C-alpha cells in the first residue's frame, strides 16, 4: 500500500518533470534526459520509506541523503513527509539537519503533518545551549505554516531578550520570516526590532538592520538613538551586515543632515589647500565665512565608513563608495576612486556592476576618474558588455587635454573583430567630436575614411554619426556630403541617412542632389522602407528648391509611392503630394511647405546613455537595470533645515564596556589606554614615561590610543569637528561620552585632568609629605579667549600616582558658555621647538614651558603650562647635620646666594618658611637657630638635592641655594627672592 502510494507520487513527479521540460523550450531535450534518469531513480526510491522507518541510524541517514538528492534536483518527495518527520528528534546531528532541510522545504505543502514537529522545537527553545536554541528558532521560523504564527511570535519575543547574542541574531532573522508569512504582525515585530536595535552586539547589528529594512524602513525614528552606536560598531560587524547598515545609514543621513554641497563654491577656492591639509584650518575658516558646519554625526559616519573601502568584499566597497557619493562634500568623494578602480580586477560580473556605477559617476565628476583613465582601456579578451561600458566611461572622461590619447585608443578599437564593439566605438567618437569642438574636423575626416571599410555595420554606423556631426556645421562640409553621395552602402539605415543629408543640405550640393534622386528613382521599388521614406523626403525637398530639374522625377517617385505595399509610405506620399504640389484643393498649408520641410533643425545632442541613471541610488539593483525595482526606496533630498540633532543623544549607558570588550577585535591593542580612561570617570590621565617617552606620550595625547603621527592629525581634526573624538573605530571615546553626564545648558561642569610630567631616578633620601599651602591656580585659558571654556592649572604637590618620576599638574576646566562642551582634550604637543620627545630635558632643566593645545567643540586653542621651578621639587626630610654636610659638598659653582631686604612683617620665622614653601615644594629642616631657616628638596626628574637656607639679619636676609643644577639653583633663587622681598 505504502509502496503504491509512493509509486504514484513519483509518477506524478515524473510527469511534472516532463511538463517542465516542455515549458522550458531550450531544455526540452534536457527534460527528456531527466525523465530517463528519473525512471531509474523511481525503482530505487521504493525502499526509501522502509529505510526511513527502520531502526538503524545508518539506513535512515542513507535514505535521507537520497531524499535530499531528490530535493536538490527539484523532484517531488513530499509523499515521504510522515516518514521523515518522525526523525526530527533524532540524536544523530546529520540526520537531524537533513530532516530540517526536508521539513523547511515541504512544511508549506503538508501543514498538518508539519505541526507534529513543532513541540520538538519548542522544547529545544528552552535548551541551556545557546546554539541549540538558535537552531531551533531558525528552523521553527522557517516553517511557513500560518497556524504557528502565535508560537513564532512568542519565540521571537523570548529570543530577542536572550542572553546570547547569537540567539538574538537568529531572532532578528526570524522577524523577517514571520513578517513575510503574516504582515499583520508588523506592529509587534516593530517593537521587537526596536528592542534589538538597541543591542550593542556586533553579531546582532547587521541582522536587525536587515529586518528593519524589510519590515519598517519608514520608521526612521527608531534609528536616532542608535545612530552613533551603529556608526561606531560598523567596523566590527560582519561584512554582509556592513553592506546593509551602510545602505540604511545613507538613507538616514539624507533625511537628517543638511546638504554639504551648497557652498561648494567656497570650497573650490581653497580646495587645494584644504584637501589634504588638516581639515581643521579649513573648518575654522569655513565657520567664519559661512554658516554651514557639518553635523558631527554626519562627519562620524563618513569617518567610520572610510576604512571599509579597504574591505575584500566588493559589495562593502561599493556601498561605501555610494555613501560618499551621496553624502560627502564634493571634494571628499574622490577618496573612493582608487578602491573602485581596484574592484575592476575582480570577476567579470563585479566589473560589470562597478563599471556601470563609474559610468554614472564619471558624467558628473570627470576629475574623479581621469587619473585612472588607462584602467578603462579595453582588452580584446573583455566581454562585449564590459567593453561597451569602458568605452562609455572613456567617452565621459574625454576633454581637450586627453582627447588625442583617447582617439588614438579608439582607432585601435574601430578595427576590432567584435563588430558590435567597433560600431559602439564610432558612436563614441561622434560623442567626443560634438562635445569637444576642436577635434570635430579630425573626427569627421577619420569617420569618412571608415566609410571605405569593408564591414557594413562599421560603415553604417559611421554614416549615421557623420550625419549627426554634419548637422552641427553643414556649410563647411559639402565635399564630405559629395563623397557620401557617391557611396554605395548596402545598409538601409546608412542609405537613408545619406539621403536625408543630401535632402537637408541640397543647396550645398546643387549638382549632385538631382542625380542622386534620379538613381534612387531607378531602384525605388527594391529599397527598404526606411530608404523609400527618405527618398520621398528627398524628392519633396528638391522639388521645393530645384523644381526645374526634379519636377518629373518627383512626380514619378510620388506615383511609385502611391502604390507601395507599405501604408506608411502611401500615407507619406499622399501627405507630401498635398503639401508641395499646388492644386486647387490644396489648403493653407502648402504655402508653408518650404518652411515645414526645410526648417532649420537643431543639431542632435549626443549624450551618454547613463545620463539619467543618477536618479537612482548608486549601487542598487534599480541603478543597474535603470528602472525602478520592487522595493526600491528613494533617497530623499537633503532637508533645508536640519532636524533636531539632539534626538541622537544617548543617555548614560551601562553595559557598553563589557560589550566592546568582548567583540572588538580591532580595538584590542588599544585596551590598555582605554582601561585607564575608564577607571576614572572624571579624571583623564595623561602620562608620559621618560623611558618610552615618545610613543606613550603620543598615545595618550591623541586621545584614542592607536596614535601615530598621521592618526593624531586626523584625530585633532575630528575633535574639533565632532563631539566624539576618537579615531575611526575607537569605542573608548564613545564610552567617555556616554559615561559623562550630559551637560545641560548653563551648567558648569568641571573636569579635572591630572597631568604628570616625566622625571626620573629614585633618590635615597626620605621623601616627606609636602607642607600644605593654599592652592595657587594659574590661568591656562581665559574664558574670553576660550569662547566660554576656561582652564586653570595648579600643582597639587601630590606624589604622582602614575609614576614617581612625574609631577602632577591639575587642570580645571570651567564651562562659562551656554553650550555643552564635550571631549576636551589635549591634542598634541607643539611647543616652541620642543616636541614630546624633548620632554625629559624640560623636567631636568626645569626651564622650559610646555605648550599644549586644548580643543573644544569646534575650536582649538594653544595654551602653555609654565612649570615654576619650585614645583619641580619633592620635599625631603633630613637632620640639621645632614643638611650642613650636604651643603658643605655643594659649594662654589653649585652655590648661589643673594641678600634681600625683607618686609618688616616677614621678620618672624613663621612667614619666612610659609613664603618659601608657597613658592617651592620644599621640606622644612628642623633648625636650632631662630634666624636660620633650612629647606631641603630634590628634583623630581633627576633626584638631585636642592638645599635652601635663609639666614635672617634684622630686616635683611642672606638667601643661599645649593644644588648641582646651577640653572635650577639660580632660577629658584630668583623666585624666592621676589617672594620673600614682597609683602605677604
Amino acid at each position, binding site marked *: 500500500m505504502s509502496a503504491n502510494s509512493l509509486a504514484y507520487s513519483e509518477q506524478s513527479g515524473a510527469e511534472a518533470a516532463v511538463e517542465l521540460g516542455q515549458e522550458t523550450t*531550450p531544455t526540452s531535450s534536457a527534460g527528456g534526459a531527466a525523465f530517463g534518469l528519473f525512471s531509474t531513480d523511481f525503482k530505487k526510491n521504493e525502499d526509501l520509506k522502509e529505510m526511513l522507518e527502520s531502526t538503524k541510524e545508518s539506513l535512515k541517514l542513507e535514505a535521507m541523503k537520497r531524499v535530499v538528492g531528490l530535493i536538490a534536483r527539484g523532484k517531488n518527495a513530499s509523499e515521504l513527509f510522515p516518514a521523515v518527520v518522525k526523525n526530527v528528534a533524532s540524536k544523530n546531528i546529520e540526520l537531524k*539537519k537533513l530532516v530540517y532541510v526536508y521539513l523547511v522545504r515541504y512544511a508549506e505543502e503538508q501543514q498538518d503533518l508539519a505541526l507534529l514537529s513543532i513541540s520538538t522545537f519548542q522544547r529545544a527553545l528552552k535548551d541551556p545551549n545557546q546554539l541549540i536554541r538558535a537552531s531551533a528558532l531558525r528552523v521553527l521560523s522557517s516553517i511557513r505554516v500560518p497556524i504557528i504564527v502565535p508560537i513564532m511570535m512568542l519565540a521571537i519575543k523570548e529570543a530577542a531578550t536572550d542572553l546570547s547574542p547569537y540567539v538574538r541574531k537568529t531572532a532578528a532573522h526570524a522577524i*523577517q520570516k514571520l513578517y513575510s508569512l503574516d504582515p499583520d504582525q508588523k506592529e509587534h515585530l516593530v517593537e521587537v526590532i526596536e528592542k534589538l536595535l538597541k543591542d550593542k552586539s556586533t553579531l546582532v547589528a547587521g541582522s536587525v538592520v536587515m529586518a528593519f529594512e524589510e519590515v519598517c524602513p519608514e520608521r526612521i525614528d527608531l534609528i536616532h538613538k542608535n545612530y552613533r552606536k551603529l556608526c561606531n560598531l560598523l567596523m566590527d560587524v560582519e561584512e554582509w551586515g556592513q553592506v546593509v547598515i551602510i545602505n540604511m545609514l545613507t538613507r538616514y543621513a539624507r533625511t537628517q543632515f543638511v546638504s554639504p554641497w551648497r557652498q561648494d563654491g567656497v570650497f573650490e577656492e581653497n580646495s587645494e589647500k584644504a584637501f589634504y591639509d588638516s581639515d581643521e584650518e579649513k573648518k575654522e575658516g569655513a565657520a567664519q565665512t559661512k554658516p554651514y558646519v557639518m553635523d558631527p554625526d554626519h562627519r562620524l559616519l563618513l569617518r567610520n565608513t572610510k576604512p571599509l573601502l579597504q574591505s575584500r568584499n*566588493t559589495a562593502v566597497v561599493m556601498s561605501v563608495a555610494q555613501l560618499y557619493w551621496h553624502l560627502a562634500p564634493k571634494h571628499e568623494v574622490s577618496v573612493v576612486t582608487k578602491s573602485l578602480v581596484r574592484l575592476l580586477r575582480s570577476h567579470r560580473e563585479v566589473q*560589470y556592476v562597478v563599471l556601470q556605477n563609474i559610468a554614472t559617476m564619471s558624467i558628473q565628476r570627470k576629475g574623479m576618474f581621469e587619473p585612472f583613465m588607462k584602467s578603462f*582601456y579595453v582588452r580584446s579578451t573583455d566581454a*562585449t558588455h564590459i567593453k561597451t561600458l569602458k568605452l562609455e566611461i572613456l567617452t565621459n572622461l574625454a576633454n581637450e587635454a586627453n582627447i588625442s590619447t583617447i582617439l588614438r585608443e579608439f582607432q585601435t578599437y574601430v578595427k576590432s*573583430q567584435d563588430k558590435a564593439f567597433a560600431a559602439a566605438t564610432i558612436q563614441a567618437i561622434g560623442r567626443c567630436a560634438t562635445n569637444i569642438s576642436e577635434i570635430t574636423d579630425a573626427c569627421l575626416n577619420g569617420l569618412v575614411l571608415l566609410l571605405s571599410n569593408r564591414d557594413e555595420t562599421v560603415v553604417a554606423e559611421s554614416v549615421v554619426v557623420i550625419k549627426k556631426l554634419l548637422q552641427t556645421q553643414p556649410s563647411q562640409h559639402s565635399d564630405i556630403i559629395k563623397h557620401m553621395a557617391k557611396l554605395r552602402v548596402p545598409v538601409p539605415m546608412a542609405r537613408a541617412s545619406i539621403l536625408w543629408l543630401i535632402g537637408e543640405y541640397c543647396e550645398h550640393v546643387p549638382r549632385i542632389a538631382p542625380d542622386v534622386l534620379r538613381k534612387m528613382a531607378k531602384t525605388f521599388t527594391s529599397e527598404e522602407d526606411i530608404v523609400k521614406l527618405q527618398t520621398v523626403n528627398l524628392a519633396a525637398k528638391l522639388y521645393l528648391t530645384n523644381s526645374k530639374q526634379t519636377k518629373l522625377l518627383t512626380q514619378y517617385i510620388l506615383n511609385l509611392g502611391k502604390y507601395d505595399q507599405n501604408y506608411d509610405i502611401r500615407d507619406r506620399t499622399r501627405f507630401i503630394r498635398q503639401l508641395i504640389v499646388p492644386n486647387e484643393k490644396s489648403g493653407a498649408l502648402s504655402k508653408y511647405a518650404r518652411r515645414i520641410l526645410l526648417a532649420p533643425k537643431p543639431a542632435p545632442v549626443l549624450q551618454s546613455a547613463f545620463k539619467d541613471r543618477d536618479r537612482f541610488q548608486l549601487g542598487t539593483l534599480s541603478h543597474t*537595470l535603470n528602472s525602478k525595482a520592487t522595493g526600491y526606496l528613494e533617497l530623499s533630498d537633503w532637508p533645508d533645515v536640519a532636524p533636531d540633532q539632539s534626538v541622537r543623544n544617548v543617555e548614560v549607558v551601562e553595559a557598553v564596556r563589557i560589550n566592546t570588550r568582548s567583540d572588538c577585535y580591532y580595538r584590542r591593542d588599544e585596551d590598555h589606554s582605554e582601561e585607564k580612561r575608564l577607571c576614572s570617570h572624571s579624571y583623564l590621565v595623561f602620562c608620559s614615561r621618560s623611558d618610552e617617552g615618545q610613543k606613550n606620550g603620543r598615545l595618550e595625547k591623541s586621545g584614542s590610543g592607536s596614535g601615530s603621527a598621521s592618526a593624531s592629525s586626523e584625530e585633532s581634526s575630528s575633535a574639533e569637528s565632532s563631539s566624539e573624538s576618537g579615531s575611526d573605530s575607537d569605542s573608548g571615546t564613545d564610552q567617555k561620552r556616554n559615561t559623562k553626564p550630559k551637560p545641560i545648558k548653563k551648567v558648569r561642569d568641571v573636569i579635572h585632568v591630572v597631568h604628570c610630567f616625566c622625571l626620573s631616578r629614585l633618590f635615597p633620601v626620605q621623601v616627606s609629605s609636602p607642607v600644605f599651602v593654599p592652592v595657587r591656580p594659574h590661568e591656562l585659558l581665559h574664558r574670553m579667549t576660550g569662547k566660554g571654556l576656561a582652564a586653570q592649572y595648579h600643582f597639587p604637590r601630590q606624589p604622582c600616582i602614575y609614576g614617581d618620576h612625574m609631577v602632577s599638574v591639575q587642570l580645571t576646566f570651567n564651562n562659562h558658555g551656554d553650550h555643552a562642551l564635550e571631549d576636551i582634550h589635549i591634542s598634541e604637543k607643539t611647543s616652541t621647538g620642543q616636541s614630546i620627545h624633548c620632554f625629559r630635558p624640560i623636567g631636568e632643566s626645569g626651564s622650559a614651558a610646555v605648550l599644549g593645545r586644548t580643543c573644544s567643540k569646534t575650536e582649538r586653542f594653544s595654551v602653555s603650562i609654565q612649570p615654576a621651578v619650585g614645583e619641580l621639587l619633592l620635599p625631603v626630610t633630613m637632620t640639621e647635620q645632614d643638611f650642613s654636610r650636604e651643603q658643605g659638598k655643594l659649594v662654589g659653582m653649585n652655590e648661589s646666594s643673594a641678600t634681600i631686604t625683607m618686609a618688616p612683617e616677614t621678620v618672624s620665622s613663621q612667614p619666612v618658611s610659609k613664603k618659601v614653601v608657597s613658592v617651592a615644594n620644599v621640606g622644612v629642616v628642623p633648625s636650632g637657630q631662630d634666624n636660620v631657616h633650612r629647606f631641603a628638596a630634590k628634583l623630581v626628574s633627576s633626584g638631585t638635592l636642592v638645599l635652601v637656607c635663609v639666614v635672617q639679619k634684622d630686616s635683611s636676609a642672606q638667601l643661599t641655594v645649593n644644588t648641582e643644577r646651577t640653572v635650577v639653583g639660580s632660577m629658584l633663587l630668583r623666585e624666592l627672592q621676589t617672594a620673600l622681598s614682597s609683602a605677604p
Partner: protein
Amino acid sequence: MIHSLFLVNATGDIFLEKHWKSVVSRSVCDYFFEAQERATEPENIPPVIPTPHHYLISVLRHRIYFVAVIQSEVPPLFVIEFLHRVVDTFQDYFGVCTEAAIKDNVVVVYELLEEMLDNGFPLATESNILKELIKPPTILRTVVNTITGSTNVGEQLPTGQLSVVPWRRTGVKYTNNEAYFDVVEEIDAIIDKSGSTITAEIQGVIDACVKLTGMPDLTLSFMNPRLLDDVSFHPCVRFKRWEAERILSFIPPDGNFRLLSYHVSSQNLVAIPVYVKHNITFREGSSQGRFDLTLGPKQTMGKAVESVLVSSQLPRGVLNTSLNPSQGTYTFDPVTKLLSWDVGKINPQKLPSLKGTMSLQAGASKPDENPTINIQFKIQQLAISGLKVNRLDMYGEKYKPFKGIKYMTKAGKFQVRT
C-alpha cells in the same frame, strides 16, 4: 534577499536547486535561457536579468552558471559577491568546482548552502566556520564513513560564529608549526604595435598558508611599504595598525587564505619582463598570410622567464596555419581560430620563435585587424615591484614556527597589439 539558487550547466540543464524562502518554479530560468541564446558568447550574458516578477543575478564560473533569484531591491554586488563566495567554498571543499563534483557531493553542497544563508541573508561564509560544521569530504573519510556509517557533519556546534575572531577556530593543534607567505604579483599591460607600453600596472596579492597551534598573533612588516598604493585586507588585519605603522598585524585564519591584495602605485614605472617581435601580414588577394613571432626577455633582474604561453585569437578568415616553433609546441583550433603556443622557458641565448604561413579563405577579403597576442609567463623568486617582506613576528604563543616567504611574478592580462 536571495530567494533561490539554480545551478545550470553549459548545456542548459538545471542540475541543482535550492530555495531559502518559498519555492520558486524553475521555469523562471527560461528568461535566463533566452538571454543565453541571445548572447553570442557565454561571457556576454548580462549578469542581471529582469523578469516580470523576479530578478536573476548570475555568475559564470567553471562553465557553471549560478543563477540567484531575487524578488526585491538588493545591491547586485551583494549577490554577486556571495555567489562567488559559494563557488570558492565549493572549490575549497571539493578541490574543483565542476558539475560532477557537485552532483557527487550533493548532500554536502546542500548542507553548505543551508548554513551559508538563512532566509536569504548570509549567515556563515567564513570557510573555517563551515569546515567546523561540515567536514570536507576526503577519500579516507568517505571510506571510513561507508564502513562505520559516521557522518560528515561535525559534532560541534558553530562556536566560531560566537567568537571575536570568527575566521579562526579554537583548539588548533599542529606538530609542525609553519607559516608560508606567497607574494604573487601580476603585470597587467597593453603593449602597442611598436612595442611601447600603453598601460602597465602591477597588482599583487599575499596568499598565506598558516598552520600554527593555538591563537598566534602575527605581525608582518615590509622593507618598502610605501610601494603599496591601494590595499584590501582579509578581515583579520587590524586596519589601524596598518594606517599608523604600515605593519600588518593579525590573528591568522587556519590554513590557506588571502591576506592582502594590493596595487602598486602607478607613478612607479613598471618593468616589462618580455618583449615580442612580430610580423603578421595578410596580403590583399593572396590566400596566404605570414606569421612571424619572436619572444625575448628584458628587465627580468637576472631571473629566468618560465612557463611562457602565447595565445592569439586569429581572424575568422584564417583556415589553417603551418607554423614552425623553434621550441615548445603549438596548436591551432580551426573552429575557434585560437592559436596557442606553449613555449616553456625563454633561453636568452636562443630566443624562441614561431614562424610560418597561414592559409586564408580563398576569395575572402583580408582581415582588417591583426590579432592581439596574449602572453602568460612566470618568474620565480622575483616581485617585480621590488616589494620585500622585512620580518614576521609571532606573539601570543611560545613555540618557534617555521616561516617561509616566496616571491613570484606572473603575467596578468598581458596583451600585445599587432
